[in-house]
């Protein structure tokens, strides 16, 4: 069977050549056929989501995608792929839960909606009762072998948890503190990130995770560190508008704060990626996306104030500096007028036996008749 080392090599090689799945499926299918690895049962629950991650995942080109689904993984429950519906479909889920505890992988796509006990998000109907996403994820999650959150919403709350977060959405890890959730973030997550993580789980167990629970396999370096425009950055040559060919830092590129391997992997079958088509990275794999990353064309996030107004970071900074300048100038003028500066300077700089002090004496005004 493929060693872990070779697998890791393929992850990078596949990214650069753009044929990760073609490289990886044949040895895997062989291993499964030879009984070296078991097909891993997978169920996917969609909660507060736009299904974007499924669409992204389905971008893996057939025949490889169908091969993976039939030969390598046991893809059991996924709304977009289901051929059954209603009770029959729910039964598949229950069967997986009862017959394969601590064997199946739970994939969660979408944020956990907590407002009003989660009743803004229903994912099933059982015994005459609507089941909330929250209940279902906890129910399935506690008995899963691995819990994988895919997409920005499931990992850290994402757009669904954006300011002012009326649905009180959050990421899966927060509602499932008992389990270590493997975060495959991104808006959407790249198909290679999702499938690569699943394959690693199937073959070698849990991959090494980085600081925010994401597999180091894909999220070890910042976009900035591997960006082809890095030489422009280092020389200080910046695009002044979106659409230009230089480094996009000044138009809000979040590459320096975003951990993902987009520069080598790229998107849509390696066709292109944001910076490749001259628009800044928007930081979609990071916790706090999108609030902390928006406006996407500005360096720092806008700060919400009570009452719903948002103020840019830079204007807050300039405001504070403006206020102190006014205060200092005001104080200096008043001190000059009151004679405090003279007094202090004379008192602290003159030599001699007697330290002189000064005080403001009465001023006389002259009055003269106006000519009429």
């Amino acid at each position: 069977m493929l060693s872990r080392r070779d697998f890791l090599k393929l992850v990078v090689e596949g990214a650069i050549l753009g044929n990760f799945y073609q490289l990886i499926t044949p040895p895997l299918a062989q291993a499964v056929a030879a009984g070296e690895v078991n097909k891993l049962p997978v169920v996917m629950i969609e909660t507060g989501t736009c299904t974007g991650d499924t669409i992204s995942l389905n971008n893996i080109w057939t025949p490889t995608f169908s091969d993976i689904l039939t030969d390598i993984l046991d893809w059991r429950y996924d709304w977009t792929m289901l051929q059954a519906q209603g009770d029959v479909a729910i039964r598949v889920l229950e069967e997986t839960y009862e017959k394969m505890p601590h064997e199946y992988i739970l994939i969660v796509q979408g944020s956990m909606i907590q407002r009003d006990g989660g009743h803004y998000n229903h994912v099933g109907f059982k015994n005459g009762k609507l089941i909330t996403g929250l209940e279902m994820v906890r129910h399935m999650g506690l008995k899963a072998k691995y819990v994988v959150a895919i997409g920005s919403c499931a990992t850290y709350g994402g757009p669904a948890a954006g300011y002012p977060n009326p649905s009180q959405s959050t990421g899966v890890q927060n509602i499932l503190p008992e389990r270590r959730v493997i975060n495959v973030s991104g808006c959407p997550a790249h198909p290679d990130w999702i499938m690569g993580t699943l394959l690693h789980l199937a073959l070698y167990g849990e991959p090494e995770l980085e600081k925010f629970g994401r597999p180091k396999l894909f999220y070890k370096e910042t976009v900035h560190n591997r960006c082809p425009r890095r030489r422009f950055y280092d020389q200080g040559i910046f695009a002044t508008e979106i659409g230009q060919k230089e480094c996009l830092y000044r138009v809000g590129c979040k590459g320096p704060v975003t951990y993902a391997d987009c520069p080598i992997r790229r998107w849509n079958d390696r066709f292109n990626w944001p910076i490749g088509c001259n628009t800044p990275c928007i930081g979609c794999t990071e916790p706090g996306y999108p609030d902390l990353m928006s406006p996407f064309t500005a360096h720092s996030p806008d700060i919400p104030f009570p009452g719903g107004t948002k103020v840019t970071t830079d204007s807050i900074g300039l405001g504070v500096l403006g206020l102190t300048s006014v205060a200092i100038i005001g104080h200096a003028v008043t001190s000059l007028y009151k004679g405090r500066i003279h007094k202090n300077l004379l008192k602290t700089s003159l030599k001699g036996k007697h330290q002189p002090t000064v005080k403001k004496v009465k001023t006389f005004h002259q009055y003269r008749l106006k000519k009429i």
Partner: protein
Amino acid sequence: MSMKQAVKLRRPVLKQLTQASLQNEIVLSHSIWVRIFHWGFTVSLTGIILTGLILHQPPNFLVLNFGKVFIVHLASSWFAMGFVALRITDAILRRDNSLIPKIEDLKHFPKLLGYYFFLRPSPPPNRKYNSGQVLMYFSWFLLFLVASLLGLASYWQGKHLLWVWHMVGGFQVLRWIKFAVTIYFLATIPLHIYLSLTEDISRLQAMVTGYERKPPP
């Protein structure tokens, strides 16, 4: 306090001072390490803040080599951390607590504000530094340490100091806090310069020479 020890001045200087028939006493108010720290920190912090602002938003009237700006930021930071370490060591060795706020400092603070707002003719009595100074310098120390910690966390890119990342919750927040700290420094440093130029000019020269002239006790 240990600060006001008997003075050892170089002989020619002493001679000149006696010739000037000076009545007041010459006291040491800033030890050599304090002065080295002060001016070293001034230079390196200026470097940090200017390059930090450029890293934050590259100005369009300057085309700087960004790689070098970054190196200046890092180098100034290492220097500044070194100077702070020096000052802390010196404070520990001399048991100098002049920069640590005490309750009595806080009690004097409203009166000091009264003085600054021209409601009182003179500032209230104080230890080496007045209550406003103590509060400001202490806040600088704290914020410098916070910013350095965040800086180191981003420098190591998540290889070390993972707890810092978990605490702040992401790179953008980290940057934002550093920017806010920079603004705080930028707002308070001019205040510091203004007051040291206008309140007690002999204290300013003492930061160069170390000595201050005080009326005998």
